[in-house]
Protein backbone atom coordinates (compact mmCIF):
# COMPACT_ATOMS: atom_id res chain seq x y z
CA UNK A 1 0.00 0.00 0.00
CA UNK A 2 1.12 3.49 -0.68
CA UNK A 3 0.85 6.52 1.53
CA UNK A 4 0.67 8.94 -1.37
CA UNK A 5 -1.77 11.81 -1.33
CA UNK A 6 -5.20 11.31 -2.82
CA UNK A 7 -5.85 13.39 -5.91
CA UNK A 8 -9.20 14.56 -4.52
CA UNK A 9 -10.20 16.45 -7.66
CA UNK A 10 -9.69 13.38 -9.82
CA UNK A 11 -11.57 11.07 -7.44
CA UNK A 12 -14.42 13.59 -7.16
CA UNK A 13 -14.65 13.63 -10.94
CA UNK A 14 -14.98 9.82 -10.92
CA UNK A 15 -17.64 10.09 -8.21
CA UNK A 16 -19.48 12.89 -10.03
CA UNK A 17 -19.40 15.34 -7.14
CA UNK A 18 -18.48 18.98 -7.73
CA UNK A 19 -16.18 20.21 -4.93
CA UNK A 20 -15.26 23.73 -3.89
CA UNK A 21 -11.58 24.62 -3.42
CA UNK A 22 -12.20 24.65 0.31
CA UNK A 23 -13.64 21.12 0.19
CA UNK A 24 -10.71 19.87 -1.89
CA UNK A 25 -8.38 21.17 0.79
CA UNK A 26 -10.38 19.86 3.77
CA UNK A 27 -11.32 16.46 2.34
CA UNK A 28 -7.77 16.00 1.06
CA UNK A 29 -6.39 16.35 4.59
CA UNK A 30 -9.12 14.21 6.18
CA UNK A 31 -8.89 11.44 3.61
CA UNK A 32 -5.09 11.45 3.83
CA UNK A 33 -5.43 10.98 7.57
CA UNK A 34 -7.93 8.13 7.10
CA UNK A 35 -5.64 6.44 4.56
CA UNK A 36 -2.83 6.46 7.10
CA UNK A 37 -5.13 4.63 9.50
CA UNK A 38 -6.26 2.05 6.94
CA UNK A 39 -2.69 1.42 5.87
CA UNK A 40 -2.25 -0.68 9.03
CA UNK A 41 -3.86 -3.45 6.99
CA UNK A 42 -0.54 -3.91 5.20
CA UNK A 43 0.71 -5.50 8.45
CA UNK A 44 -1.68 -8.42 7.95
CA UNK A 45 -0.28 -11.39 6.08
CA UNK A 46 -3.11 -12.22 3.69
CA UNK A 47 -1.05 -14.10 1.09
CA UNK A 48 -2.96 -17.35 1.61
CA UNK A 49 -6.31 -15.82 2.60
CA UNK A 50 -9.21 -15.76 0.14
CA UNK A 51 -11.28 -12.59 -0.16
CA UNK A 52 -14.75 -12.61 1.39
CA UNK A 53 -17.63 -10.67 -0.10
CA UNK A 54 -20.48 -12.58 1.53
CA UNK A 55 -19.94 -13.86 5.06
CA UNK A 56 -23.04 -15.85 5.80
CA UNK A 57 -24.18 -18.33 3.18
CA UNK A 58 -22.81 -18.44 -0.30
CA UNK A 59 -25.21 -20.09 -2.65
CA UNK A 60 -26.73 -19.46 -6.00
CA UNK A 61 -30.20 -17.98 -5.71
CA UNK A 62 -32.74 -18.86 -8.33
CA UNK A 63 -36.45 -18.33 -8.52
CA UNK A 64 -39.31 -18.73 -10.92
CA UNK A 65 -39.52 -15.91 -13.43
CA UNK A 66 -43.01 -14.79 -12.54
CA UNK A 67 -44.79 -11.59 -13.42
CA UNK A 68 -46.30 -9.56 -10.62
CA UNK A 69 -47.58 -6.08 -9.92
CA UNK A 70 -45.01 -3.32 -10.34
CA UNK A 71 -45.05 0.30 -9.25
CA UNK A 72 -47.69 2.51 -10.80
CA UNK A 73 -46.08 4.60 -13.55
CA UNK A 74 -47.88 7.79 -12.60
CA UNK A 75 -46.77 7.46 -8.96
CA UNK A 76 -43.17 6.99 -10.00
CA UNK A 77 -43.17 9.80 -12.54
CA UNK A 78 -44.80 12.16 -10.06
CA UNK A 79 -41.51 12.04 -8.14
CA UNK A 80 -39.36 12.92 -11.14
CA UNK A 81 -37.49 16.22 -10.92
CA UNK A 82 -38.61 16.87 -14.49
CA UNK A 83 -40.85 14.85 -16.76
CA UNK A 84 -42.24 15.03 -20.22
CA UNK A 85 -45.31 12.88 -20.72
CA UNK A 86 -44.39 9.30 -19.78
CA UNK A 87 -40.64 10.07 -19.75
CA UNK A 88 -38.02 11.39 -17.33
CA UNK A 89 -36.64 14.60 -18.82
CA UNK A 90 -32.88 15.15 -18.58
CA UNK A 91 -30.51 17.77 -19.97
CA UNK A 92 -29.13 17.15 -23.45
CA UNK A 93 -26.65 14.26 -23.46
CA UNK A 94 -25.40 14.34 -27.07
CA UNK A 95 -24.16 17.70 -28.31
CA UNK A 96 -25.94 19.34 -31.24
CA UNK A 97 -24.15 19.01 -34.54
CA UNK A 98 -22.43 21.95 -36.18
Amino acid sequence: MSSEKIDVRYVAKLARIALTDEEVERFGAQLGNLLEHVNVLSELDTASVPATAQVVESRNVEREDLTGPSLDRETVLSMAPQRQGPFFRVPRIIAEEG
Partner: protein
Amino acid sequence: MADVVRMTAAETAAAVNSGTLSAAEVTDAMLAHVDAVDDRVGAYLTRLHELAREYAKRVDERVRGGEKLPLAGVPVAVKDNMCLTGTRTTAGSKILENWIAPYTGTAVQRMLDAGAIPIGKANMDEFAMGSSCENSALGITRNPYDLTRVPGGSSGGSVAAVAAYEAAIGMGSDTGGSIREPAAFCNTVGFKPTYGRVSRYGLIAFASSLDQIGPLTRTVEDSALAYEAMAGWDRMDSTSIDRPVEKASTALRGDLKGLRVGIVKQFVTEKLGAEIHALYQQTYKELENLGATLVEVELPTADYGLATYYLIAPAECSSNLARFDGVRYGLRVEGGDVGAMYEATRAAGFGPEVKRRILIGTYALSSGYYDAYYVKAQKARTMFANDFKRAFETCDLIASPAASSPAFQFNAKSDPYSMYMMDYYTIPMSLAGLPALSVPCGWITPEGGDRPMPMGLQLAAPLFEEVKLLGAAHAYEQGTKHASKYDAMVVSA
Protein backbone atom coordinates in the same frame (compact mmCIF):
# COMPACT_ATOMS: atom_id res chain seq x y z
CA MET B 1 -52.86 7.89 29.91
CA ALA B 2 -49.28 8.57 31.00
CA ASP B 3 -48.89 4.90 31.91
CA VAL B 4 -49.96 3.76 28.46
CA VAL B 5 -46.96 5.35 26.75
CA ARG B 6 -44.61 3.64 29.22
CA MET B 7 -45.92 0.16 28.48
CA THR B 8 -43.62 -2.32 26.82
CA ALA B 9 -44.54 -3.83 23.48
CA ALA B 10 -45.42 -7.10 25.23
CA GLU B 11 -47.73 -5.32 27.69
CA THR B 12 -49.43 -3.26 25.00
CA ALA B 13 -50.01 -6.26 22.74
CA ALA B 14 -51.46 -8.27 25.64
CA ALA B 15 -53.78 -5.42 26.65
CA VAL B 16 -55.00 -4.78 23.10
CA ASN B 17 -55.45 -8.47 22.31
CA SER B 18 -57.50 -8.97 25.49
CA GLY B 19 -59.59 -5.89 24.86
CA THR B 20 -58.61 -3.97 28.00
CA LEU B 21 -57.13 -1.26 25.78
CA SER B 22 -57.83 -0.40 22.16
CA ALA B 23 -55.11 0.32 19.63
CA ALA B 24 -56.85 3.65 19.05
CA GLU B 25 -56.47 4.59 22.73
CA VAL B 26 -52.80 3.61 22.73
CA THR B 27 -52.20 5.56 19.53
CA ASP B 28 -53.97 8.70 20.72
CA ALA B 29 -52.01 8.66 23.98
CA MET B 30 -48.77 8.12 22.13
CA LEU B 31 -49.37 10.88 19.58
CA ALA B 32 -50.23 13.31 22.39
CA HIS B 33 -47.04 12.36 24.22
CA VAL B 34 -44.96 12.77 21.05
CA ASP B 35 -46.48 16.20 20.46
CA ALA B 36 -45.64 17.14 24.07
CA VAL B 37 -41.99 16.06 24.17
CA ASP B 38 -40.61 15.69 20.67
CA ASP B 39 -39.91 19.36 20.10
CA ARG B 40 -37.23 18.88 22.77
CA VAL B 41 -36.03 15.41 21.73
CA GLY B 42 -36.29 15.62 17.96
CA ALA B 43 -36.65 11.88 17.45
CA TYR B 44 -39.01 12.21 14.49
CA LEU B 45 -38.54 13.91 11.16
CA THR B 46 -42.16 13.17 10.24
CA ARG B 47 -45.03 12.45 12.61
CA LEU B 48 -47.69 10.22 11.11
CA HIS B 49 -50.83 11.25 13.02
CA GLU B 50 -53.32 10.32 10.33
CA LEU B 51 -51.66 7.12 9.19
CA ALA B 52 -51.15 5.94 12.79
CA ARG B 53 -54.86 6.41 13.55
CA GLU B 54 -55.77 4.61 10.35
CA TYR B 55 -53.61 1.61 11.29
CA ALA B 56 -54.96 1.65 14.85
CA LYS B 57 -58.47 1.42 13.48
CA ARG B 58 -57.49 -1.54 11.32
CA VAL B 59 -55.84 -3.31 14.25
CA ASP B 60 -58.88 -2.81 16.44
CA GLU B 61 -61.08 -4.26 13.71
CA ARG B 62 -58.80 -7.27 13.35
CA VAL B 63 -58.75 -7.87 17.11
CA ARG B 64 -62.54 -7.55 17.27
CA GLY B 65 -62.66 -10.11 14.49
CA GLY B 66 -60.90 -12.58 16.77
CA GLU B 67 -57.29 -12.25 15.61
CA LYS B 68 -54.43 -12.32 18.12
CA LEU B 69 -51.62 -10.08 16.86
CA PRO B 70 -48.11 -10.36 18.33
CA LEU B 71 -47.66 -6.57 18.18
CA ALA B 72 -51.29 -5.46 18.50
CA GLY B 73 -51.36 -1.69 18.87
CA VAL B 74 -47.63 -1.40 19.58
CA PRO B 75 -46.30 2.07 18.65
CA VAL B 76 -43.29 1.92 16.38
CA ALA B 77 -40.71 4.47 15.23
CA VAL B 78 -39.48 3.73 11.70
CA LYS B 79 -35.97 4.84 10.80
CA ASP B 80 -36.18 7.20 7.86
CA ASN B 81 -34.18 4.96 5.54
CA MET B 82 -37.10 2.50 5.45
CA CYS B 83 -39.82 2.87 2.87
CA LEU B 84 -43.43 3.15 3.98
CA THR B 85 -45.91 3.86 1.19
CA GLY B 86 -47.04 7.45 1.03
CA THR B 87 -44.66 8.73 3.70
CA ARG B 88 -41.70 11.05 3.24
CA THR B 89 -38.58 8.89 3.36
CA THR B 90 -35.41 10.97 3.47
CA ALA B 91 -32.52 8.86 4.81
CA GLY B 92 -31.65 12.07 6.66
CA SER B 93 -30.47 13.63 3.41
CA LYS B 94 -31.26 16.79 1.47
CA ILE B 95 -31.10 14.74 -1.71
CA LEU B 96 -34.27 12.90 -0.61
CA GLU B 97 -35.78 15.68 1.50
CA ASN B 98 -39.13 15.60 -0.31
CA TRP B 99 -39.21 12.02 -1.58
CA ILE B 100 -42.40 10.07 -0.91
CA ALA B 101 -41.90 6.29 -0.81
CA PRO B 102 -44.03 4.56 -3.46
CA TYR B 103 -43.84 1.17 -1.73
CA THR B 104 -43.36 -0.40 1.71
CA GLY B 105 -40.24 -2.35 2.68
CA THR B 106 -40.63 -5.93 3.81
CA ALA B 107 -39.51 -5.49 7.43
CA VAL B 108 -41.84 -2.53 7.91
CA GLN B 109 -44.72 -4.39 6.26
CA ARG B 110 -44.21 -7.40 8.52
CA MET B 111 -44.29 -5.18 11.61
CA LEU B 112 -47.54 -3.61 10.40
CA ASP B 113 -49.00 -7.02 9.61
CA ALA B 114 -48.17 -8.04 13.18
CA GLY B 115 -50.29 -5.15 14.46
CA ALA B 116 -47.69 -2.41 15.00
CA ILE B 117 -48.68 1.25 14.61
CA PRO B 118 -46.31 3.57 12.71
CA ILE B 119 -46.01 6.72 14.86
CA GLY B 120 -43.42 8.49 12.77
CA LYS B 121 -40.30 8.40 10.63
CA ALA B 122 -37.22 8.74 12.80
CA ASN B 123 -34.16 10.94 12.31
CA MET B 124 -30.80 9.40 11.43
CA ASP B 125 -27.29 10.21 10.30
CA GLU B 126 -27.43 10.90 6.57
CA PHE B 127 -27.62 7.56 4.73
CA ALA B 128 -26.82 5.89 8.09
CA MET B 129 -23.25 7.22 8.06
CA GLY B 130 -22.38 8.36 11.54
CA SER B 131 -22.38 7.48 15.22
CA SER B 132 -24.11 10.50 16.76
CA CYS B 133 -27.03 11.46 14.52
CA GLU B 134 -25.25 14.80 14.01
CA ASN B 135 -24.81 13.99 10.32
CA SER B 136 -28.54 14.31 9.67
CA ALA B 137 -29.11 17.11 7.19
CA LEU B 138 -32.68 17.55 8.36
CA GLY B 139 -32.79 17.83 12.14
CA ILE B 140 -31.14 17.53 15.54
CA THR B 141 -31.93 14.60 17.83
CA ARG B 142 -31.03 14.86 21.51
CA ASN B 143 -30.29 12.17 24.05
CA PRO B 144 -33.38 11.83 26.29
CA TYR B 145 -31.07 11.13 29.27
CA ASP B 146 -29.19 14.43 28.80
CA LEU B 147 -30.41 16.85 26.17
CA THR B 148 -26.93 18.34 25.81
CA ARG B 149 -25.64 15.01 24.51
CA VAL B 150 -26.03 13.04 21.29
CA PRO B 151 -28.29 9.97 21.15
CA GLY B 152 -25.71 7.99 19.17
CA GLY B 153 -26.17 6.89 15.62
CA SER B 154 -26.92 6.26 13.03
CA SER B 155 -30.30 5.06 14.36
CA GLY B 156 -30.42 8.10 16.68
CA GLY B 157 -34.06 9.04 16.12
CA SER B 158 -35.35 5.50 16.58
CA VAL B 159 -33.44 5.06 19.84
CA ALA B 160 -34.39 8.50 21.20
CA ALA B 161 -38.05 7.74 20.46
CA VAL B 162 -37.85 4.52 22.48
CA ALA B 163 -35.91 6.09 25.36
CA ALA B 164 -38.36 9.02 25.63
CA TYR B 165 -41.38 6.66 25.49
CA GLU B 166 -42.34 8.04 22.07
CA ALA B 167 -42.51 4.44 20.77
CA ALA B 168 -42.16 0.98 22.25
CA ILE B 169 -40.11 -0.32 19.35
CA GLY B 170 -37.68 1.58 17.18
CA MET B 171 -36.79 0.05 13.85
CA GLY B 172 -33.10 0.61 13.23
CA SER B 173 -30.46 -0.49 10.77
CA ASP B 174 -26.93 -1.49 11.70
CA THR B 175 -23.98 -1.51 9.32
CA GLY B 176 -21.05 -1.18 11.73
CA GLY B 177 -22.84 -0.51 15.03
CA SER B 178 -25.72 1.81 14.16
CA ILE B 179 -28.20 -0.07 16.36
CA ARG B 180 -25.90 -1.19 19.18
CA GLU B 181 -24.03 2.06 19.88
CA PRO B 182 -27.13 4.29 20.12
CA ALA B 183 -28.80 1.61 22.26
CA ALA B 184 -25.89 1.85 24.70
CA PHE B 185 -26.08 5.67 24.72
CA CYS B 186 -29.80 5.76 25.51
CA ASN B 187 -30.33 2.96 28.05
CA THR B 188 -32.10 0.67 25.62
CA VAL B 189 -31.66 -2.76 24.09
CA GLY B 190 -30.44 -2.74 20.49
CA PHE B 191 -30.33 -5.96 18.52
CA LYS B 192 -28.66 -6.65 15.17
CA PRO B 193 -29.65 -10.11 13.91
CA THR B 194 -27.40 -12.30 11.74
CA TYR B 195 -26.73 -10.70 8.36
CA GLY B 196 -29.58 -11.76 6.06
CA ARG B 197 -32.10 -12.64 8.78
CA VAL B 198 -34.19 -9.57 8.01
CA SER B 199 -34.98 -8.58 4.43
CA ARG B 200 -33.36 -5.39 3.21
CA TYR B 201 -36.06 -4.80 0.59
CA GLY B 202 -37.19 -1.21 1.04
CA LEU B 203 -34.15 -0.24 3.13
CA ILE B 204 -32.19 2.54 1.42
CA ALA B 205 -28.80 0.90 0.91
CA PHE B 206 -25.56 2.06 2.53
CA ALA B 207 -23.21 -0.97 2.45
CA SER B 208 -25.18 -3.94 1.18
CA SER B 209 -22.93 -6.72 2.51
CA LEU B 210 -23.18 -5.30 6.05
CA ASP B 211 -26.58 -3.55 6.37
CA GLN B 212 -29.02 -5.30 8.64
CA ILE B 213 -32.36 -4.18 10.10
CA GLY B 214 -33.13 -4.80 13.77
CA PRO B 215 -35.09 -3.49 16.76
CA LEU B 216 -34.39 -0.97 19.53
CA THR B 217 -36.55 -1.54 22.61
CA ARG B 218 -36.64 -0.98 26.36
CA THR B 219 -36.61 -4.71 27.14
CA VAL B 220 -34.97 -7.81 25.68
CA GLU B 221 -38.38 -9.48 25.47
CA ASP B 222 -39.61 -6.69 23.19
CA SER B 223 -36.57 -7.11 20.95
CA ALA B 224 -37.37 -10.81 20.69
CA LEU B 225 -40.99 -10.04 19.74
CA ALA B 226 -39.95 -7.47 17.14
CA TYR B 227 -37.33 -9.83 15.72
CA GLU B 228 -39.89 -12.62 15.32
CA ALA B 229 -42.20 -10.24 13.50
CA MET B 230 -39.65 -8.82 11.05
CA ALA B 231 -37.26 -11.72 10.36
CA GLY B 232 -37.49 -14.40 7.69
CA TRP B 233 -36.82 -15.13 4.07
CA ASP B 234 -38.15 -12.74 1.47
CA ARG B 235 -38.27 -13.29 -2.25
CA MET B 236 -37.56 -9.59 -2.76
CA ASP B 237 -34.10 -9.87 -1.13
CA SER B 238 -31.97 -12.66 -2.56
CA THR B 239 -29.47 -12.27 0.31
CA SER B 240 -32.15 -12.97 2.91
CA ILE B 241 -31.67 -16.30 4.66
CA ASP B 242 -33.96 -19.17 3.82
CA ARG B 243 -34.09 -20.77 7.27
CA PRO B 244 -36.87 -20.99 9.81
CA VAL B 245 -36.88 -18.22 12.44
CA GLU B 246 -36.88 -19.94 15.81
CA LYS B 247 -39.07 -18.36 18.46
CA ALA B 248 -36.92 -16.31 20.80
CA SER B 249 -39.58 -14.74 23.03
CA THR B 250 -40.47 -18.09 24.60
CA ALA B 251 -36.81 -19.10 25.13
CA LEU B 252 -35.81 -16.23 27.42
CA ARG B 253 -33.67 -17.45 30.27
CA GLY B 254 -33.54 -16.69 33.97
CA ASP B 255 -29.85 -17.47 34.45
CA LEU B 256 -26.66 -18.12 32.53
CA LYS B 257 -25.88 -21.57 33.92
CA GLY B 258 -23.89 -23.73 31.56
CA LEU B 259 -22.99 -20.84 29.24
CA ARG B 260 -19.37 -20.08 28.45
CA VAL B 261 -18.92 -16.36 27.83
CA GLY B 262 -15.79 -15.31 25.97
CA ILE B 263 -13.92 -12.16 26.95
CA VAL B 264 -11.74 -10.99 24.06
CA LYS B 265 -8.12 -10.65 25.17
CA GLN B 266 -7.46 -7.90 22.62
CA PHE B 267 -10.45 -5.80 23.77
CA VAL B 268 -8.47 -4.07 26.49
CA THR B 269 -10.87 -1.92 28.51
CA GLU B 270 -8.10 -0.19 30.49
CA LYS B 271 -7.59 2.19 27.60
CA LEU B 272 -11.17 3.46 28.04
CA GLY B 273 -10.27 4.98 31.42
CA ALA B 274 -10.29 3.64 34.97
CA GLU B 275 -13.99 4.20 35.58
CA ILE B 276 -15.18 2.50 32.39
CA HIS B 277 -12.70 -0.31 32.89
CA ALA B 278 -14.02 -0.91 36.39
CA LEU B 279 -17.60 -0.87 35.12
CA TYR B 280 -16.94 -3.60 32.56
CA GLN B 281 -14.98 -5.71 35.06
CA GLN B 282 -18.07 -5.48 37.25
CA THR B 283 -20.29 -6.38 34.28
CA TYR B 284 -18.28 -9.52 33.53
CA LYS B 285 -18.47 -10.41 37.22
CA GLU B 286 -22.26 -10.09 37.03
CA LEU B 287 -22.30 -12.56 34.14
CA GLU B 288 -20.33 -14.96 36.30
CA ASN B 289 -22.66 -14.42 39.26
CA LEU B 290 -25.57 -15.39 37.03
CA GLY B 291 -23.95 -18.74 36.32
CA ALA B 292 -21.78 -18.11 33.26
CA THR B 293 -18.24 -19.40 32.99
CA LEU B 294 -15.87 -16.71 31.71
CA VAL B 295 -13.20 -17.80 29.25
CA GLU B 296 -10.55 -15.73 27.53
CA VAL B 297 -10.72 -15.81 23.73
CA GLU B 298 -8.43 -14.36 21.08
CA LEU B 299 -9.40 -11.97 18.31
CA PRO B 300 -5.96 -11.26 16.84
CA THR B 301 -7.45 -9.04 14.12
CA ALA B 302 -9.32 -6.81 16.59
CA ASP B 303 -7.23 -3.73 15.91
CA TYR B 304 -7.75 -4.04 12.16
CA GLY B 305 -11.54 -3.80 12.28
CA LEU B 306 -11.85 -0.08 11.69
CA ALA B 307 -9.41 -0.14 8.77
CA THR B 308 -11.21 -3.07 7.15
CA TYR B 309 -14.61 -1.52 7.67
CA TYR B 310 -13.60 1.94 6.44
CA LEU B 311 -12.58 0.46 3.12
CA ILE B 312 -15.42 -2.01 2.55
CA ALA B 313 -18.33 0.16 3.70
CA PRO B 314 -17.30 3.28 1.74
CA ALA B 315 -16.54 1.18 -1.35
CA GLU B 316 -20.04 -0.26 -1.25
CA CYS B 317 -21.61 3.11 -0.48
CA SER B 318 -19.85 4.79 -3.39
CA SER B 319 -21.51 2.25 -5.64
CA ASN B 320 -24.93 2.27 -3.93
CA LEU B 321 -25.19 6.06 -3.83
CA ALA B 322 -24.43 6.39 -7.54
CA ARG B 323 -28.20 6.12 -8.07
CA PHE B 324 -28.71 9.59 -6.63
CA ASP B 325 -28.06 11.52 -9.81
CA GLY B 326 -31.02 13.87 -10.15
CA VAL B 327 -32.64 11.91 -12.99
CA ARG B 328 -35.55 9.90 -11.63
CA TYR B 329 -36.25 11.15 -8.10
CA GLY B 330 -34.96 13.41 -5.41
CA LEU B 331 -33.10 16.66 -5.77
CA ARG B 332 -31.93 17.97 -9.13
CA VAL B 333 -29.67 20.99 -9.56
CA GLU B 334 -29.33 22.13 -13.16
CA GLY B 335 -25.82 22.72 -14.39
CA GLY B 336 -25.80 22.85 -18.18
CA ASP B 337 -25.13 19.42 -19.66
CA VAL B 338 -26.08 16.16 -18.02
CA GLY B 339 -22.63 15.61 -16.43
CA ALA B 340 -22.67 19.04 -14.84
CA MET B 341 -26.20 18.32 -13.60
CA TYR B 342 -24.99 15.13 -11.86
CA GLU B 343 -22.09 16.95 -10.24
CA ALA B 344 -24.13 19.94 -9.10
CA THR B 345 -26.95 17.73 -7.78
CA ARG B 346 -24.62 15.54 -5.73
CA ALA B 347 -22.63 18.54 -4.50
CA ALA B 348 -25.78 20.19 -3.17
CA GLY B 349 -27.58 17.04 -2.05
CA PHE B 350 -24.94 15.20 -0.01
CA GLY B 351 -23.48 16.35 3.31
CA PRO B 352 -19.76 16.29 4.15
CA GLU B 353 -19.61 12.82 5.74
CA VAL B 354 -21.41 11.21 2.81
CA LYS B 355 -19.06 12.98 0.38
CA ARG B 356 -16.02 11.81 2.35
CA ARG B 357 -17.18 8.21 2.28
CA ILE B 358 -18.08 8.28 -1.41
CA LEU B 359 -14.65 9.74 -2.15
CA ILE B 360 -12.70 7.22 -0.08
CA GLY B 361 -14.77 4.39 -1.54
CA THR B 362 -14.30 5.60 -5.08
CA TYR B 363 -10.58 5.85 -4.42
CA ALA B 364 -10.39 2.33 -2.94
CA LEU B 365 -12.15 0.93 -5.99
CA SER B 366 -10.27 2.97 -8.58
CA SER B 367 -7.78 1.57 -11.02
CA GLY B 368 -4.40 0.94 -9.42
CA TYR B 369 -5.72 0.87 -5.85
CA TYR B 370 -8.36 -1.85 -6.03
CA ASP B 371 -6.07 -4.73 -4.97
CA ALA B 372 -4.15 -2.73 -2.41
CA TYR B 373 -7.24 -1.47 -0.62
CA TYR B 374 -10.52 -3.15 -1.47
CA VAL B 375 -9.28 -6.71 -2.03
CA LYS B 376 -6.94 -6.43 0.92
CA ALA B 377 -9.87 -5.43 3.12
CA GLN B 378 -11.96 -8.33 1.85
CA LYS B 379 -9.15 -10.70 2.78
CA ALA B 380 -8.95 -9.14 6.22
CA ARG B 381 -12.66 -9.73 6.46
CA THR B 382 -12.10 -13.45 5.93
CA MET B 383 -9.65 -13.36 8.83
CA PHE B 384 -12.33 -11.85 11.07
CA ALA B 385 -14.78 -14.60 10.16
CA ASN B 386 -12.11 -17.26 10.83
CA ASP B 387 -11.04 -15.68 14.13
CA PHE B 388 -14.61 -15.69 15.39
CA LYS B 389 -15.12 -19.28 14.28
CA ARG B 390 -12.07 -20.27 16.30
CA ALA B 391 -13.18 -18.21 19.32
CA PHE B 392 -16.61 -19.84 19.34
CA GLU B 393 -15.01 -23.27 19.62
CA THR B 394 -14.40 -22.48 23.28
CA CYS B 395 -17.32 -20.20 24.14
CA ASP B 396 -21.05 -19.77 23.45
CA LEU B 397 -21.21 -15.98 23.49
CA ILE B 398 -18.73 -13.12 23.43
CA ALA B 399 -19.06 -10.16 25.82
CA SER B 400 -17.55 -6.72 25.33
CA PRO B 401 -18.34 -3.02 25.66
CA ALA B 402 -20.90 -1.82 23.11
CA ALA B 403 -19.29 1.60 22.67
CA SER B 404 -16.02 3.24 23.68
CA SER B 405 -17.61 5.84 25.96
CA PRO B 406 -20.94 7.09 27.25
CA ALA B 407 -22.87 9.54 25.06
CA PHE B 408 -20.78 12.63 24.30
CA GLN B 409 -21.80 16.25 23.85
CA PHE B 410 -22.70 17.82 20.52
CA ASN B 411 -19.70 18.80 18.38
CA ALA B 412 -17.32 16.82 20.59
CA LYS B 413 -15.92 14.72 17.73
CA SER B 414 -14.75 17.11 15.06
CA ASP B 415 -12.17 14.71 13.63
CA PRO B 416 -13.94 12.02 11.56
CA TYR B 417 -11.64 9.25 12.80
CA SER B 418 -12.39 9.96 16.47
CA MET B 419 -16.07 9.45 15.62
CA TYR B 420 -15.28 6.19 13.84
CA MET B 421 -13.56 4.94 17.03
CA MET B 422 -16.95 4.79 18.77
CA ASP B 423 -17.67 1.61 16.81
CA TYR B 424 -14.40 -0.18 17.63
CA TYR B 425 -16.22 -2.99 19.47
CA THR B 426 -19.21 -3.40 17.16
CA ILE B 427 -17.49 -3.43 13.75
CA PRO B 428 -15.78 -6.85 14.06
CA MET B 429 -19.15 -8.58 14.59
CA SER B 430 -20.57 -6.75 11.57
CA LEU B 431 -17.69 -7.84 9.37
CA ALA B 432 -18.36 -11.46 10.36
CA GLY B 433 -22.15 -11.10 9.98
CA LEU B 434 -22.76 -12.21 13.57
CA PRO B 435 -25.89 -11.53 15.59
CA ALA B 436 -25.07 -9.09 18.38
CA LEU B 437 -26.90 -6.81 20.77
CA SER B 438 -26.37 -4.16 23.39
CA VAL B 439 -28.07 -4.37 26.78
CA PRO B 440 -27.83 -1.74 29.57
CA CYS B 441 -25.03 -2.60 32.04
CA GLY B 442 -24.56 0.41 34.31
CA TRP B 443 -24.10 4.16 34.60
CA ILE B 444 -21.19 6.56 34.46
CA THR B 445 -21.14 10.29 35.03
CA PRO B 446 -18.92 11.59 32.23
CA GLU B 447 -16.22 14.12 32.94
CA GLY B 448 -17.79 17.56 32.98
CA GLY B 449 -21.29 16.02 33.07
CA ASP B 450 -23.74 16.46 35.91
CA ARG B 451 -25.85 13.34 35.52
CA PRO B 452 -25.19 9.62 35.09
CA MET B 453 -25.28 8.27 31.54
CA PRO B 454 -26.01 4.68 30.56
CA MET B 455 -23.46 2.17 29.27
CA GLY B 456 -24.07 -0.95 27.20
CA LEU B 457 -22.83 -4.53 27.27
CA GLN B 458 -22.42 -6.06 23.83
CA LEU B 459 -23.15 -9.77 23.54
CA ALA B 460 -22.43 -11.59 20.27
CA ALA B 461 -23.27 -15.13 19.20
CA PRO B 462 -22.33 -17.44 16.33
CA LEU B 463 -24.29 -17.09 13.08
CA PHE B 464 -28.01 -17.89 13.45
CA GLU B 465 -27.81 -18.23 17.27
CA GLU B 466 -30.28 -15.41 17.94
CA VAL B 467 -32.29 -17.50 20.41
CA LYS B 468 -29.27 -18.21 22.57
CA LEU B 469 -28.22 -14.56 22.39
CA LEU B 470 -31.58 -13.07 23.34
CA GLY B 471 -32.10 -15.71 26.01
CA ALA B 472 -28.83 -14.83 27.73
CA ALA B 473 -29.37 -11.08 27.37
CA HIS B 474 -32.73 -11.46 29.09
CA ALA B 475 -31.11 -13.30 32.00
CA TYR B 476 -28.55 -10.50 32.35
CA GLU B 477 -31.20 -7.78 32.12
CA GLN B 478 -33.48 -9.41 34.69
CA GLY B 479 -30.60 -10.35 36.97
CA THR B 480 -29.15 -6.83 37.11
CA LYS B 481 -31.97 -4.38 36.30
CA HIS B 482 -29.53 -1.59 35.42
CA ALA B 483 -31.95 0.10 33.03
CA SER B 484 -34.52 1.00 35.67
CA LYS B 485 -32.06 2.84 37.91
CA TYR B 486 -32.63 6.24 36.28
CA ASP B 487 -35.38 7.63 34.10
CA ALA B 488 -34.96 9.77 31.02
CA MET B 489 -34.39 13.46 31.78
CA VAL B 490 -37.02 14.52 29.29
CA VAL B 491 -39.83 12.70 31.12
CA SER B 492 -38.65 12.69 34.75
CA ALA B 493 -38.57 16.47 35.35
